[in-house]
């Protein structure tokens, strides 16, 4: 199994010139090898059907390197990646935002990687095989008036390609940035797209991070492209991601994530609150349909006093899909006045759909306020009857109730 990845790794190393980057990749690869491929014996992978992930013969993405962008110059703007490769011609960077590729500056992103690898096998494997990482720097005190778009376009017609990408963002002291991250796919062959983001929020930095994995056609600026390439969901596209946010004193991170899975997804979110008064807010809406699978893992590590996390996420599973949710709050020893609250509510819309949810608290300190709770339910039969008795037919009434359930999170987007 690992032989396949060794070949891939050799190809990757051959393409990289920068010695620091080569060494970093070797480190990541050794880490992954030592760890070995995750199995369902491991708690973090207990509910993850991995056979499709490891058994497929994923190939290197080298031949996608020179793919012609599907846009003319002056496309969607913000930071634009095509098959993981930064597209300077399609990107518009506001003042105070700088983008470099790792080949040119491979030092900074290494800072928090080991902590991430310990928790995320996917992140170590992806870093080992990633040739086109990005380093984004947001200067101190920058206040962006407009959201900064971060656009991932996947346009693959080569055979079974694994596309790993890593974006490291340094948020300077007291900056304020809203990042709107979107994914668009127009691929006709099996593709596994992995994105790792490592964010470092310096003292007083504020980041609002909106992630939209829903890939709604028509609403996307890429609609024509999507139509050309066929509709996502009929094709086997696997998407995995890891986000590691390091938060310094008085920094604030607010994340909103909307994900609709028809295929296979696993997303891992880690928040390391390391400075006093750092705070995190998370709102997530995860919906699976068809035979889709989505696993979302949230980890909040409180390393400093007076830090807080406010976490609400909701799940909706339809058809024969499966949703796996994990929420983990950890408060380290010797700190105080931590406020951490996690709420998860889920809606099961069919008998064959499955939801596994597990909230976890690990508290090693005394003076803290922490809570967690999870529920799984169905649409309220009374509410359905009430609506139908007013003439609204059953499918429309169900839709209204599902929308109502989702509204709390969607309104944040």
């Amino acid at each position, binding site marked *: 199994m690992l032989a396949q990845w060794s070949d891939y790794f050799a190809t990757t190393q051959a393409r990289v010139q920068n010695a620091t980057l080569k060494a970093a990749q070797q480190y990541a690869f050794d880490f992954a090898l030592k760890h070995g491929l995750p199995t369902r014996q491991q708690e973090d992978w207990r509910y993850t059907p991995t056979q499709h992930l490891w058994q497929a013969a994923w190939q290197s993405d080298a031949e996608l390197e020179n793919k012609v962008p599907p846009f003319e110059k002056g496309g969607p703007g913000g930071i634009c990646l095509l098959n993981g490769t930064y597209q300077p011609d399609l990107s518009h960077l506001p003042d105070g935002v700088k983008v470099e590729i790792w080949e040119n500056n491979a030092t900074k992103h290494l800072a928090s990687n080991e902590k991430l690898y310990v928790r995320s096998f996917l992140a170590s494997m992806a870093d080992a095989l990633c040739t086109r990482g990005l380093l984004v720097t947001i200067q101190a005190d920058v206040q962006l008036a407009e959201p900064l778009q971060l656009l991932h376009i996947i346009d693959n017609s080569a055979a079974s390609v694994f596309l790993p990408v890593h974006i490291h963002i340094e948020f300077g002291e007291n900056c304020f940035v809203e990042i709107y991250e979107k994914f668009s796919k127009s691929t006709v062959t099996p593709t596994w797209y992995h994105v790792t983001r490592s964010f470092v929020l310096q003292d007083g930095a504020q980041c609002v991070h909106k992630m939209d994995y829903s890939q709604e056609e028509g609403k996307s600026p890429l609609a024509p492209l999507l139509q050309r390439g066929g509709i996502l969901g009929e094709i086997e596209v696997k998407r995995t991601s890891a986000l590691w946010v390091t938060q310094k004193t008085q920094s604030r991170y607010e994340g909103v994530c909307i994900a609709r899975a028809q295929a296979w997804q696993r997303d891992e979110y880690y928040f390391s609150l390391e400075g006093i008064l750092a705070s995190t807010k998370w709102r997530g809406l995860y919906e699976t349909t068809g035979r889709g699978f989505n696993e979302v893992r949230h980890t909040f590590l409180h390393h400093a006093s007076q830090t807080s996390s406010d976490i609400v996420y909701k799940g909706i599973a339809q058809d024969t899909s499966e949703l796996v949710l994990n929420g983990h709050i950890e408060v380290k020893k010797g700190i105080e006045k931590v406020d951490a609250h996690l709420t998860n509510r889920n809606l099961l819309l069919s008998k064959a759909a499955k939801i596994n949810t597990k909230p976890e608290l690990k508290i090693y300190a005394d003076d803290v306020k922490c809570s967690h709770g999870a529920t799984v339910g169905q649409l*309220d039969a009374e509410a359905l009857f*009430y609506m*139908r*008795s*007013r*003439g*609204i037919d059953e499918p429309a009434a169900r839709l209204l109730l599902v929308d109502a359930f989702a509204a709390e999170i969607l309104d944040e987007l």
Partner: protein
Amino acid sequence: MLSIKNLQATVQNKPILRGIDLNINPGEVHAIMGPNGSGKSTLANVLAGRDLYRVTEGHVQYLEKDLLVLSPEERAHLGIFLAFQYPIEIPGVSNVHFLKTALNTIRKARGLADIDAMDFLKIIKEKIKQVDLPEDFLYRSLNEGFSGGEKKRNDILQMLLLEPSLVILDETDSGLDIDALQTVAKGVNALRSKDRSFLVITHYQRLLDYIVPDYVHVLSQGRIVKSGGPELALELEAKGYGWLEMEQA
């Protein structure tokens, strides 16, 4: 208009209605009274099509159609409206959106085009005054955090908007103070017409001071045991339900 013949129904295999016969003609107001557990609410819910109840015998014809084979929404499209004993709270669905969706669905079923958004607002703002609710209730989640009286007023608002042909009031008076009761009655009386009928289900005679019925029926143990004019309600108020059960025995 509505013709009920030998209607029998169960809840979780327990017989509740044991043979109801009732005819309602256009323009008539019928009141159904009876002690707790006599089957009043079951009758209302069976007519509206709630699937919790199972009809085991009998027929119900409404506007020449077999009502019992229709879904709740099809019944609503035909003009049946149930005012709930306990209107449901639905967080996240705005009242105004719900009202507009309901109106347009019913209009569509009647072969009419969707109502223009501005016209709709004009109409609904006019109607909400009739039930003495502040306008901001339109923009709140459906019934969420409304008091008991406000929920009933909101139900009556739906009735005024949808203009049904048969209105079933299921103990709408329960838990209402006198002001709310008068508002509800005012709404109902405003809709009374020669081709619209009402089935008023109530435990107490009080509501019938404001909505004066043409006929009063007494339901006991799943059957109509006595029918009469409005004076029957007064008699029940004075003597209670005990004498009827004695008479039956």
